[in-house]
């Protein structure tokens, strides 16, 4: 039996410390942005969650390929855990975005390239996670899920590229300057770096816990199956 591993404990401690520092820097130390005011502070957490969402997606690709090559269920569980955590991070980007956009742009949602890409990515993630809920057989779920994981992840560059191109063909809406304009102050840079580090650590921690959880679930299922066999033999 495995308890909580030393790596998990270290990761948990690190995440806790860095997240605490990120919150202190983002909400307290970093100066208030001149034009946007305090609402700009949400940007640290917003950008902080985009990066792990991407990381999660590429890990899904990697782990899915590894699963198809080795047929080791551990890889599939890692891919699924990463996909689910990625979905949470993508959701966070989509929630914090409009909260920032309403006071800054005046609208909750604009069909800007970045917003559209993120929404589409969220749907791809959702499809990947949802698909598994509707397949009963374990090996089939892993096999089919891995194929979808690979297709979904390879679509991400196109989602980004097509949206960028799409944007260049049309005049920009009310969006101008925006998020990049505030990052000149060194304390703001620190807040951003800390937020990025904190969310990356959080991603690793959650993905590890998730994979562990799925592993335990798999083990319990195996034990149940074995118990059934024993009872039948009696």
């Amino acid at each position: 039996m495995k308890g909580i591993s030393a790596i998990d404990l270290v990761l948990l401690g690190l995440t806790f410390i860095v997240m605490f520092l990120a919150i202190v820097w983002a909400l307290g130390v970093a100066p208030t942005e001149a034009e946007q005011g305090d609402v700009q502070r949400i940007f640290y957490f917003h950008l902080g969650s985009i990066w792990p969402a991407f990381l999660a997606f590429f890990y899904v690709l990697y782990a899915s390929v590894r699963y198809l090559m080795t047929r080791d269920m551990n890889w599939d569980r890692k891919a699924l855990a990463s996909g689910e955590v990625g979905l949470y991070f993508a959701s966070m980007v989509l929630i914090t975005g409009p909260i920032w956009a309403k006071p800054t742009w005046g609208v909750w949602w604009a069909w800007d390239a970045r917003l559209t890409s993120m929404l589409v990515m969220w749907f791809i993630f959702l499809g990947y996670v949802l698909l598994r809920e509707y397949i009963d057989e374990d090996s089939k779920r892993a096999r089919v899920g891995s194929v979808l994981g690979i297709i979904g992840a390879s679509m991400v560059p196109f989602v980004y590229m097509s949206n960028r191109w799409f944007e260049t063909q049309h005049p920009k809406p009310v969006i101008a300057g925006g998020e990049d304009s505030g990052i000149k102050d060194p304390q703001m840079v620190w807040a951003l770096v800390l937020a990025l580090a904190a969310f990356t650590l959080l991603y690793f921690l959650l993905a590890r816990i998730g994979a562990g959880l799925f592993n335990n679930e798999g083990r319990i299922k195996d034990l149940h199956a074995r118990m059934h066999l024993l009872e039948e033999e009696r």
Partner: protein
Amino acid sequence: MTPVSAVFKAMLAKDVRRELRSKEIFISGFLFSIILLCAIYIAVTAGNLKFEKMGTGAIWLCILFTGTVSMNRIHQSETANGCYRGLILAPVEGGWLYLSKVCANLLLLGFSATLLVPLTALFFQLDVWANLPYLLASLYLGILAFVAVGTMVVVITANTRMKDVLFPLVQLPLVVPVLIGGVNSTAVALEGKAPWDWLQMLLAMNVVFLSLGFLLYEFLLEE
């Protein structure tokens, strides 16, 4: 004849022959497209927008929805009478079966789209002669990319309990880049210009999706 090309041809011939005999998917899909064109016209004019501007969008919405419905139906007919097991037992790599399926779907959807273009031109007052070769290239490259993804996804979702709902839910987000490329390419072609950038993008997507499908289809053909 090598087994690969023999199986490829037999598969393609089977799909085409079945559709030529029953015509059910083509007829229902095409009628669905016409109803959609009416719905799009009503929806657009209700918002006081010029319906002439909606032509490109209308074509692509029809391809998207009709394609989704038709491909689901095509795959369902494949699962009847143990056809699917026959596919699994075919003496070639899964990739070739995938390519033949893509070709069959492309033929069906491409033919529907070819008939749809004059109809859309009539309803939405499009000038299809402005740049016909580029218009057709945009449509067919877009449909090929759509079909390349769909042929995979339909098999993936067919393994689930909720296949009718899950197929569009998984397929449509995946083809958003194809839709963006196709719509813009078609719009530029209808203005009489050459949409090289968008065609290149569609071509790149086709190369990636077809290669992925060729490599991964094998894994879907297990029981």
